[in-house]
């Protein structure tokens, strides 16, 4: 299983802005089992790249292919299967259902293609310290709590690649480390890969490849 980018550049970026990038306009492939770290300051297109890889936006030049299949050629149903079975994401802006409880937010994702039983939700929320929030409407949780909900939600399905878009922006270091440990365990369980985009390097992520965007 391979996620490959070829000559990729957001259509709203000028070619010159890609000169120093190790990703834009390059030919790269991410293999299963790798831990990828992408570092870039704000405005360099981290979220755009994550959205491109997740098949949510197509405003780019070049190609992104999953197992030699061009993402742009996927129809709506194929795209749904791609997100359900092969790729998972922690959005920078979290994207929770604001009026649903923490449990329901996670369960909605879990039931789609259950990798874990619903008991696992309780176990993971306990590990990340939000077990007491399971019945609370997500909009009433703090940003840090919501971020942990979004992380657990992303771990409910099978995946080959886990995309992380600044996943710890609202977490203190101890909570971030706990969350990272959980994600690494879950990724190893699936022999999968993590593509982690952030502002800077973090010590507790044992990346195998590092790219500057």
């Amino acid at each position, binding site marked *: 299983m391979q996620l490959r980018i070829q000559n990729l550049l957001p259509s709203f970026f000028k070619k010159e802005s890609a000169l120093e990038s190790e990703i834009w306009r390059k030919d790269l492939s991410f293999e299963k089992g790798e831990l990828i770290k992408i570092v870039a300051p704000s405005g360099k297109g981290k979220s755009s790249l994550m959205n491109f890889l997740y098949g949510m936006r197509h405003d780019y030049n070049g190609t992104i292919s999953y197992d030699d299949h061009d993402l742009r050629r996927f129809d709506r149903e194929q795209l*749904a299967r791609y997100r359900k079975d092969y790729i998972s994401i922690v959005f920078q802006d979290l994207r929770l259902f604001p009026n649903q409880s923490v449990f*329901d937010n996670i369960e*909605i994702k879990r*039931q*789609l293609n*259950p990798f874990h039983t619903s008991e696992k939700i309780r176990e993971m929320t306990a590990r990340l310290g939000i077990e007491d929030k399971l019945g609370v409407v997500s909009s009433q949780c703090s940003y840090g709590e919501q971020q942990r909900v979004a992380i657990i939600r992303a771990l409910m399905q099978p995946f080959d690649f886990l995309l992380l878009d600044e996943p710890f922006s609202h977490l203190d270091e101890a909570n971030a480390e706990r969350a990272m440990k959980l994600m690494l365990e879950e990724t190893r369980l699936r022999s999968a890969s993590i593509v982690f985009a952030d502002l800077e390097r973090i010590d507790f992520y044992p990346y195998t490849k590092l790219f500057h965007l």
Partner: protein
Amino acid sequence: MTADEWKIEHNRTKRSKTMSVSFKPVKPLFQTATSSVSRWFSYIGLGIGVLLLLCSIQMFVNIQQLLKGGSIRKDGYDFISITKTVTNETMGQFEKNLFNSEEIKELKTKPFISDVAPLEANQFQIELSAGGILPFRTNLFLESIENSFLDTVPSSFQWQPGQTTIPIIVSSDFLEIFNVFAPSYDLPQVSAETASGIPVLITCSGDAGREQTFSGRIVAFSDRINSVLVPKTFLDWANLTFKGQKSEHASRLYIKTKDANNTELLRFLDEKNYKINKDKTKFGRMKQIFQGIFSGLAVFGVMVIILALLLFSFYLQLVIARSRESLKLLLELGYSPGWLSSNVSRRFIPAYLIIVIVALALTQLMQWAFHHLVMYDRPELSTPINWTVILAAVILVGLSVITNYKLVRRLVFEN
């Protein structure tokens, strides 16, 4: 590997155990509870439209069944009788008031006339009595017409020279008229069956004092022809025997036509100053008018249904618009747009079913009331609703479900 192959390979993987996905946790994300006013309005509108349509179909069938007997149409043809208008100028001139063979030929050439047959009359004197059964004696006329112009021709309607019994077909109107005046003459009213059983005596008298009495028996009643009809063989024989000549002129002609209300036909008859017997076309006209009214009501019902479905589509658009964010996120999380469309639209199927079943029940109630209270259980009608009404109801449910699914699918795929 093509995208299709990828799909197939993907479907083989053990990961694809999606069909157990429950709509329950997703359901609250669609805000159907709000804006329920427009939903109820559209349900009520749909109910009224469906009820109108179903009732109209049932009434359409009722009219058809009620007027079946009175209809002058048979095998797609109308049969109308025409006479010449007797004016002051033509009074007393038989030739001018009767149809001759040339005029009959001319009628036959017209494209809007399928066939013409003269109603031939007796040229001699006839007296009818009921023998000893009823104290009844009257002068009578007899006529004959080709059998193909008769609505009911029993096998016994035949006569051969030497036969002393004459089969007779009488206009059903005559029986009604008899039953109207019978009480005032202290005569018993008779049913069609009884009338058929009464033997009557027909005395024919002609030139040179020749006279012969036959027994007559009513073998059928005609709704179409206002006359006393005997087999053509008898009348031809009797005219020759008692008057010495065959009937050459006819006072009445019967026209077989595809449409008695054809404007060309009516214009032609008018030009020729021929008079149409409108009485027998009245049923046809009444039927046309009633069916026209109920067709109009059915069209109105269909329009109400379309309006209601439109209103419902606005409601659905509102629901989807209000749930747009949730829907978008569900699709981003990997929910299939096809699965979402069918599950969202499936939620409205019970409502559609209930609406159509209630409308069907009300139509049945209407039919029961119409049959029992208005039509006093007339045997031509039936209390259960017609199968076409049930078929229409099934088609309506199907149509509503399909249009609803297509609309939801379009709205979901727009996201």
